[in-house]
């Protein structure tokens, strides 16, 4: 267990340093976002005092030390831009990202798995050929463009779905009405995200299945007279599961990273949009907090995947 988690711990430490120094390596200053239009009117002394207030005038290594010390106390700092505690900002947006990315991940994985398995089974057939062409096409389509297209179709041309946000901002809905409202707002962004991430799962499942479908045990299963559905799902798919699960876990790790582009297009209040806004504003504390959070979840899910492998596939226990 310890041997397994040690590399993850090292990765985490390295990531902490990168998360701290990388945003600060970007040219540009957060000053105009701290004091707004006044940035140019400040005297050099005033400018120094503003930077000092946020600890930005100290040498970088000293700032890093302070950051680590505060981090150990659970203090992620305050946003330079709107002055709110970073942890609060992250926690406010996390549920929306989990909802959007989570539903898209489940949809894309489920659909990709199913379509991939069938495409492999009927290799060269119409399902395989259209599926393959569709996957390549969707993969090549920028999600920004896809989102805009869906908005133009389902919100403007046929005005049936909302364009922006996670719920109706002014309606004080409760209970089921609120859930339905959230669901309606979820459809377009989740669909965009699903369509743009479907290709990966489809292709991986297809290739993994193609590898197993020619194995002797499949021939045996068929020879035993098992129904085809059982052959595909019980015998072939289970043995093709490893690369599929790996991809799923990788996707799960980046789940909280949100979907920067999709959240921005649909103005969905998730972590991806927060990241985009913090990067534009050189909001170092928010950037650090978010990157740390993303790192932690990627590391955690990778660890989980490694722990899951032996259980999923006994062969890896002895590897």
């Amino acid at each position, binding site marked *: 267990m310890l041997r397994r988690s040690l590399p993850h711990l090292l990765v985490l430490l390295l990531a902490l340093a990168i998360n701290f120094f990388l945003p600060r390596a*970007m*040219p*540009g*200053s957060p*000053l*105009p*976002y701290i*004091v*707004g*239009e*006044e*940035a*140019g*009117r*400040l*005297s*050099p002394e*005033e*400018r120094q*005092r*503003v930077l*000092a*207030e946020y600890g930005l005038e100290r040498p970088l290594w000293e700032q890093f030390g302070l950051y680590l010390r505060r981090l150990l106390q659970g203090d992620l700092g*305050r946003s330079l*831009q*709107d*002055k*709110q505690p970073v942890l609060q*900002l992250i926690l*406010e*947006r996390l549920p*929306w990202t989990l909802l959007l990315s989570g539903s898209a991940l489940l949809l894309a994985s489920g659909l990709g798995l199913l379509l991939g398995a069938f495409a492999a089974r009927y290799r060269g057939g119409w399902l395989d050929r259209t599926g393959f062409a569709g996957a390549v096409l969707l993969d090549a389509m920028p999600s920004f463009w896809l989102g*805009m297209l869906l*908005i*133009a179709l389902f*919100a*403007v041309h046929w*005005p049936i779905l*909302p*364009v*922006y*946000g*996670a*719920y109706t*901002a*002014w309606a004080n809905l409760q209970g089921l009405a609120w859930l339905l409202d959230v669901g309606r707002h979820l459809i377009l962004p989740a669909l965009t995200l699903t369509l743009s991430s479907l290709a990966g799962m489809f292709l991986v499942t297809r290739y993994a299945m193609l590898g197993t479908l020619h194995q002797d045990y499949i021939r045996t299963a068929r020879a035993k007279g098992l129904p085809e559905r059982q052959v595909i799902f019980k015998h072939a798919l289970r043995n093709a599961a490893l690369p599929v699960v790996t991809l799923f876990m990788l996707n799960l790790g980046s789940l909280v990273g949100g979907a920067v582009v999709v959240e*921005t*297009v*649909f*103005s969905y*209040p*998730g972590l991806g*949009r*927060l990241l*985009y*806004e913090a990067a*534009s504003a*050189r909001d170092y504390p928010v950037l650090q907090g978010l990157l740390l959070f993303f790192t932690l979840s990627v590391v955690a899910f990778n660890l989980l995947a490694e722990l899951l492998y032996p259980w999923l596939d006994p062969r890896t226990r002895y590897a």
Partner: protein
Amino acid sequence: MRRIKGLLVVLLLLLGLGKAQQLVLAIPAEEGLLTPFTYVTGYPGYNLLSLVYDTLMIPDLNGVPQPWLAERVSSTNGGRDWTIRLKNAQWHDGQPITSADVQFSYEYYRRYPVVSRFATAVRSIGQIRTPDTRTVQISLPRPDANFELSTLADVPILPKHIWESVTDPKAHRNNIGSGPYRLVEIRPGQSYRFEANPNYFGGRVAPQSLVVVIIREAATTFQALQAGQIAASSRELLPELIPQFANNPSFRLLRGALFTSNLLQFNTTAAPFNQVAFRQVIAGLVDPKAIVDTVLLGQATVGSPGFLHPQSPLYNPEVGSYPRLSLAQAERRLDQLGFRRGPDGVRVGRDGQRLEFELLAPANNPLRLRAAELIARQVRPAGIVFQVRALEPNTLTDRVWPEFDVSKGRNYTLAMFGWSAPVMNQANLRGLFHSKPALGNLNIGGYANPTVDTLTERLVTTVDLAERKTLAARVQSLVARDLPFLTLWYPDATYAVRPSVFDGWKFQSGQGILNKFSFLP
């Protein structure tokens, strides 16, 4: 039958009222807790803030400061002593607004200079006295020509009874102000909701409820507007979208001038842009009118060589427009300056310097980027190469204006740049052109002219309008000759709104439609 008709009328009336009572408006980004210490952007953040808080004066629709929370404002002693008589007004919680609130606010912004954006606006104040509950006397050590605009009409007044115990203004969440709206709800990352202040001293406020939603992308904003999911936006329409909205009877378009400027900025300390004669050749080759027609589809005012917008009260019409040069004239002048054509057609100076330069342009601003490309094409036939380089905006600012401190120098030759409306509103010519970094804090090109220094110093302390006009006119003439930068255009903003939902919009000159007057009779 009659009863059914009656019911229908009532129903329609109710529906109509329901519509007029709530307005949904989109802004592009969050504005924090929307207190004077946490709002983020100058526009539209400050404009939303001013729906909740009031200032002693207010720029009217033409941008001229008028008494607002003040009943009258008078100044004596050459603009050094100011007396302000307050209106009989109250805070959202019903407490009266008194002179003590005014004194407290100005001193409070000074007490927390590093977290307040208004600290610079109150730093010229010497002493504040309150002879009675409705009179404030302010004395300035030096006359300040912009005191009305940049302080009295800009600094929000805070309720003393709420803020006097607050020691961490950044974290304070109370939004009690005196403005036409009360902020009643913030949904992080999503929206702000305002309700009309029924006792507002400025008149009856409409609509009753104002919902401000955050839509990050311009394209999404205009789709939402088209789909009827918002009724207006703080964003102006992109020029190519104007015909589409103009042809749709559900929308009304509001047009007006904005005071933001778009410049071709020279580094006047780097050869050959340190020579006025060379800058004049560039000015003769660049055609701002063609840029306005091609890039902005005519939706802009062509820049004045004296920087100030033709609608600015201090504008000098005598500066006219940039003198154009024919290609032959430009070539002759370049030859005279010693720049001869090299083997590849690009001119080379006597010292061997090729006339090939990097022109920085912001990657997030398609209009400035396209204008840069057009400029490069306009100067190319004369043997001058401008290589357009798109940079992330914050990175560009860092090269042009490192650390927002002109004394730190500059790291560019040419850049597409611009200033926000306050620079134009306050005619901040000293900031733009003075050669001393402490005074010319916006002089990012390193321009120096002793006569301009003297004139702009006088401009800052001259209160008399006629005298100010004379001084500003001379500065504009000198700048039009010296060309520290080329003023290319000022955008004309067009906003699309749904009049069936709300139609009270008023265009504030240079600022747009998001202002207090839009919501007042």
